[in-house]
């Protein structure tokens, strides 16, 4: 973990969620370890933001107004510059089949709320090979 943690300071993560509290939880953990965290409250805002930055990973809620997580993923994948960016679903949809559906749609990982703060970082590292660099 320490290797991973030391790199975390290089990380630039985009967190997309319409619930500020959810964003805050994730942001606090990541910033605690030194990552740079951007945030948007829906897919549209996220896309706007993405025009200017290319994060190392995107953590996105699924149910959001204006543009939900599925559409955001689709749009990102269309973007040549952003295809390599892993998008992680971070959602309260934890019913049977939701994870498979998410993975099938192209999410690189599928994390369910409520997240475990303690294991968040490890989970990200485990599930996103790109982050290990």
């Amino acid at each position: 973990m320490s290797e991973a943690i030391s790199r975390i300071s290089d990380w630039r993560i985009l967190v997309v969620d319409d619930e500020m509290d959810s964003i805050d939880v994730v942001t606090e953990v990541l910033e605690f370890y030194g990552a740079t965290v951007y945030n948007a409250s829906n897919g549209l805002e996220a896309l706007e933001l993405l025009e200017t930055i290319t994060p190392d990973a995107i953590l996105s809620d699924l149910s959001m107004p204006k543009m939900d997580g599925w559409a955001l993923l689709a749009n990102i994948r269309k973007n040549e510059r952003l295809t390599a960016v892993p998008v992680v679903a971070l959602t309260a949809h934890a019913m049977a089949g939701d994870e498979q559906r998410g993975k099938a749609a192209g999410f690189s990982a599928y994390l369910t709320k409520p997240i475990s703060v303690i294991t968040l970082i490890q989970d990200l590292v485990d599930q996103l090979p790109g982050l290990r660099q």
Partner: protein
Amino acid sequence: MINQASMQSSRFRSLTSLRTTLTAAFVVLSVLPVAAAVFFSSQRIQAQSQAQVNTLLDAAAQNKLDTIQNWIAGSQQTLRIALAHEDDVIEMTDFLSFHKDDEAARAAVTKNLTDLLAKQQDFVSLFVYDLNGEIVAATDPVDVGKFTKTAPYFEGSLVADSVHPPFYNVGSSDLNLIFTRQIIDEQGKLVGVMAGRANPNTLAAFMAQRAGLGETGETYLVSLESNYFLTPSRFEGFPQRRSYHSEGINRSLAGEDGLASYVGYRDVPVIGVYRWLPDLQVGLMVEEDQAEAYAALQQTQRANLIAAVVAALISVIAGSVLAIRIVRPIGALTRVTQALAAGDLTQRAAIQARNEIGDLGIAFNQMASQLGETLQSLEKSVQEARVATAMAREANRLKSEFLSTMSHELRTPLNAIIGFTEIMMAGMSGPMSEKQQHKMSRIHLNSKRLLDLINDLLDLAKIEAGRVDVLYEPFAPRDLAHGIRAQMESLAEQRGLGLVVRVDPQLPTVLLGDAGRIEQATKNLLSNAIKFTKEGSVELALHANGGDVWEIVVTDSGIGIPPHALEYIFDEFRQVDGTSQRAYGGSGLGLAITRNLSRIMGGDIRVTSTVGQGSTFTITLPVSLPEELEAVA
């Protein structure tokens, strides 16, 4: 539903076949006796008719026979009379013996003959000839001097008195009817013959009497000589001097007497009586055309036949009408039935008959009404069921949606609560005092409890909504048991309990099933067992029970469950004491979920318990073997 095709292709034809049967039966039953009567009476009439004709012809033949016999007898009598007187005899014999050339003697004898001729009717001329055949005296002077030696009667006349078969002679077309009588002198010596020539038309006159023989009846005589007719045929174009043949003629000339039906000499079928006349050596024929003889009969027969045909026709019509009257209501009924079958339940049979068929119609209508009502209520029920099903489905769908939404909604705030709590506990928001940390961990604990509760609730709801897919994958029970032990070991250790795990060697190595759910249920039971046992041990045993089921048995030595509680222990939120107070934590849904899991996997769960000693929970599941192993097992 009546299959139209299985009925006769035309309703009309189906009616006629029954109609035809009835009509035919009626006709047969009514016509047959009539026909039989007509036939037999006709037979009798025919027989009678034939008998009549036969009698008639026979009588005619007999009549002719008698006439001829009388004539022969009479003629012969006449000849005998000629020499009845002794004086005449002497005169004759003297003349013949000594005075043949004496004109005076001849004249005397001739006078005698002439006198006799005048007194009788049978002969047209008489003559006397000597033993050489020379005629020495005759009532016709022309005859005197002629020779009879070559005449056919000559030889026989010397031997006996005779009548010679009628014959034709050279030089005349007349028939010769010759009677002869021996002239014998006192010494008994034959000295000559007296002969009489009968009127050549005598026989023809006899035969011409045809009273009672109709238009085609006739009698005639046939000669042995070339089968010539000795008397004329009644019919034109049949000359006497020609050979005629027919069965009747042949038989009579063969000497037979009889009656027969045959083809006559005119090539026309006749009934004939034939007789042989030995005196005259001729055949007597009495014939009548069959057509005429049976004309009356045929008329009667024809009339009978017409009557019979008319009767039959009437029978056919009557029978047909009767049959229709019987069959039509059946047809109406059939039509209504078909309509009913086709779905039109408003049709009713319009039968007005007051008989059994009418009763049938009434009963039928009642049945139809009943049918209609039943069908209507059935349809209503079906409709209701459909609505209910739709509603249930809708309810289910709403429930699912609700579940999904609830799950999502509940988890989202929890995420913040648990997240922040964990952040703070991890010290990411700065240091905290001990009291703060303690309180934070209690918040975290309760949040986790809340999360568990939500998960269990949702699980239960999912299971109840049927939104669970049961897997049927191969798994190794032994590995499952060991895995569960690994997971529960530490918990048991924490509470100072022993955990025993036993796997029955009889249990198949591999089973099909939902390993995850089995694990969930088993872990549920084990955590309960651990929770409610203060000291001792908790045992997990997997064993086979027969070949069809296997069991997961969790035994504890805990506080036990009182008997009255056993029946509702699997209900949601019910604790042993009947309250929903949870002294021992947990969501209260565990056993309910475990039961649901057992059931959706095709099994069930049961419990036995003794208060103060412990409880035993048994999950029974069906054995499902992978195919390859099934064959072996």
